[in-house]
């Protein structure tokens, strides 16, 4: 492998590696005919990201003919090559990536101003090809947004927040923080944001679903999308099947595939009916809300009972509680989509372990049964991820 990246593309490459570092600890490098693929997957295999840089992205792109080469390396050491993004932009004129087969080193050479050369020789491990199986084009809900919109949305959530829930209707998208256990709910701050469809470049909803996924990886992609100014496409289907976020331009293609929490099993079974249920109403009609609906019926007078929360009066309870039906019913069951588990799920819901979250739903270890994974392309793509524990 012998590639040269010049000018502003060095920064793009660096940003991509920084984004990938939000996903996992290892970078999978695969020079392919159609470009250089950089991939990463997290340890629980619930998040996967891939950047494919087309040959045109490079000013020189040679790959070994004959045998396919792929390797993985610690992403931290690659990040170190591109550590300072600011100085990178100012000083680096080109970056030369070369495989030294004698020494088994991947060499990154940065050609800086004034003839300065910085060479990093990185060791790597052989690995199998890493490839997630997903098909974004069959997703029912497709959105395209400028990165700014998503950056402004994510900003409202605290950095410590792990998961967000995205719900959609024909006209709107709601984003709210996902609170795991009910016990925590009383103390945690709930944030909800409503976006109108015309804030998106493209807004196509076929099924009114809610999906819950990790925010960290989305933030990682946003770093990349914001710096390159590329619009983000988002694809999702139903709870439990992955959400795909992608950025594309003529010379590069980035895809982030994130597992989503699967829905409550009782709802899951009635999937068809649920899809037709109306989405949550807007939480608060801003223009004309009535102060009475915010009344708290709570006895705080000199009642001897120390617990301040008395029963709410019925009419008010109705009006206020109905504000967030989805949040209330959104008891997301944690769930694995390994096939055996899935079949067991059909058989007996109550027996499954309750605490599995975000298991690797797009890295089956066998070919997916057609019934279950019918959305996935069955042709030739079943190059499945190796188990990282075995490799190390």
């Amino acid at each position: 492998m012998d590639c040269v990246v010049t000018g502003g593309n060095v920064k793009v490459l660096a940003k991509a590696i920084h984004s990938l570092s939000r996903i996992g600890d290892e970078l999978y490098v695969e020079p392919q005919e159609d470009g250089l693929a950089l991939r990463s997957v997290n340890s629980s295999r619930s998040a996967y990201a891939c950047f494919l840089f087309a040959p045109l992205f490079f000013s020189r792109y040679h790959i070994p003919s004959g045998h396919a080469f792929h390797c993985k390396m610690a992403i931290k050491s690659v990040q170190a090559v591109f550590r300072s993004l600011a100085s990178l932009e100012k000083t680096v004129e080109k970056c030369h990536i070369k495989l030294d087969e004698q020494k088994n080193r991947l060499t990154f050479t940065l050609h800086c101003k004034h003839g300065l050369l910085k060479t990093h020789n990185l060791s790597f491990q052989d690995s199998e090809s890493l490839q997630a199986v997903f098909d974004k084009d069959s997703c029912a809900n497709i959105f395209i947004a400028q990165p700014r919109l998503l950056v402004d949305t994510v900003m409202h959530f605290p950095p410590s927040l792990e998961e967000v829930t995205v719900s959609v209707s024909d006209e709107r998208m709601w984003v709210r923080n996902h609170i795991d256990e009910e016990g925590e709910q009383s103390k945690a701050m709930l944030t909800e944001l409503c976006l109108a469809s015309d804030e998106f470049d493209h807004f196509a909803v076929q099924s009114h679903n809610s999906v819950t996924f990790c925010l960290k990886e989305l933030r990682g992609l946003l770093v990349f999308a914001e710096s390159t100014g590329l619009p983000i496409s988002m694809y999702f289907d139903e709870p439990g099947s992955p959400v795909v976020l992608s950025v594309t331009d003529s010379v590069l293609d980035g895809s982030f595939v994130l597992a989503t929490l699967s829905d409550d099993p009782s709802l899951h079974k009635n999937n068809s009916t649920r899809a037709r249920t109306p989405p949550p109403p807007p939480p608060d009609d801003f223009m004309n809300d009535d102060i009475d609906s915010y009344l708290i019926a709570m006895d705080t007078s000199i009642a001897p009972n120390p617990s301040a929360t008395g029963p709410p009066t019925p009419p008010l309870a109705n009006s206020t509680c109905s504000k967030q039906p989805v949040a209330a019913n959104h008891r997301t069951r944690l769930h694995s989509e390994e096939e055996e588990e899935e079949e067991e799920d059909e058989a007996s819901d109550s027996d499954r372990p309750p605490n599995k979250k975000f298991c690797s739903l797009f890295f089956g270890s066998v070919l997916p049964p057609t019934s279950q994974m019918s959305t996935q392309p069955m042709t030739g793509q079943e190059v499945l991820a190796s188990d990282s524990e075995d490799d190390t």
Partner: protein
Amino acid sequence: MKFRGKIIDIACLNHFTRVITTISKLTKMCVLRLTPDNLFFVLSGKVANGGVSMWCELSQANFFDEYQMEGVSSEDNEICLEVTPENLSRALKTVQSAKSVKVKLTKKHCPCLTIAAELPTLSSVSRVVTHDVPVDVIPRRLWHEFKEPSMPDFDVSIYLPPLKIMKNVVDRMKNLSNFLVIEANLNGEMNLKIETDLVSVTTHFKDLGNPPWGDDASQGGGPSQSRDPEAMAEAKVDIRKLQQFLMGQQVNPSKAMCNIVHQRVVHLILLHEDVSLQYFIPAVA
């Protein structure tokens, strides 16, 4: 109980956010008392807070364009809530560009202060973000714990030097000792001292001036008249408490004062046109 307020003016929103952020730096939890005219943030001097107490008073009319509230009853027209100021501050910080912000008491999964903001967008429809901050409603029988603290019968009252300077001094002293002695006299002099086995450091401030408290103040015509203007009143305090107070300052006060009850308590007062913040740090032996 009902409460709803609306802020439209961006300067008011900004100011309100700064006040709440200041409070969030001082305490994790505090009590918010709502009355028809005022909002009070109160921390009562319990042992659990290290004996520190706080009283912050805002006039609602200076912040809210609309303000409606209905207390527990017509005699007790107040609402008393335990809040986490950090949450309120975080919610408000993200909506600084809002066209309008509403703060309301709501009943969701639990009682909440809901901050609903209408954010400007390029499209025709505004973006709406709501933050539900859980609160605890405090029953009326506990209200007596959250009354305005009375002005202590202080020995010396003095204006503070610029808080930034004071902060720099205290930050450095913090590295040397856990306790700091504040002393001041009626001659406009204040000293910040630390004393350890190895080192003694004193920073002297001069010509600070002593506030003229009226007859109603406890100082009145009482001890101060007879007090030697050179005599120092002193109190030894936990340096972290003082640092916390100086660190959190986001509001640039028009007046900052300190009252010292000799070896008992330090009473710090910040006055801004529409906000007053009092902070009590107990002296340690």
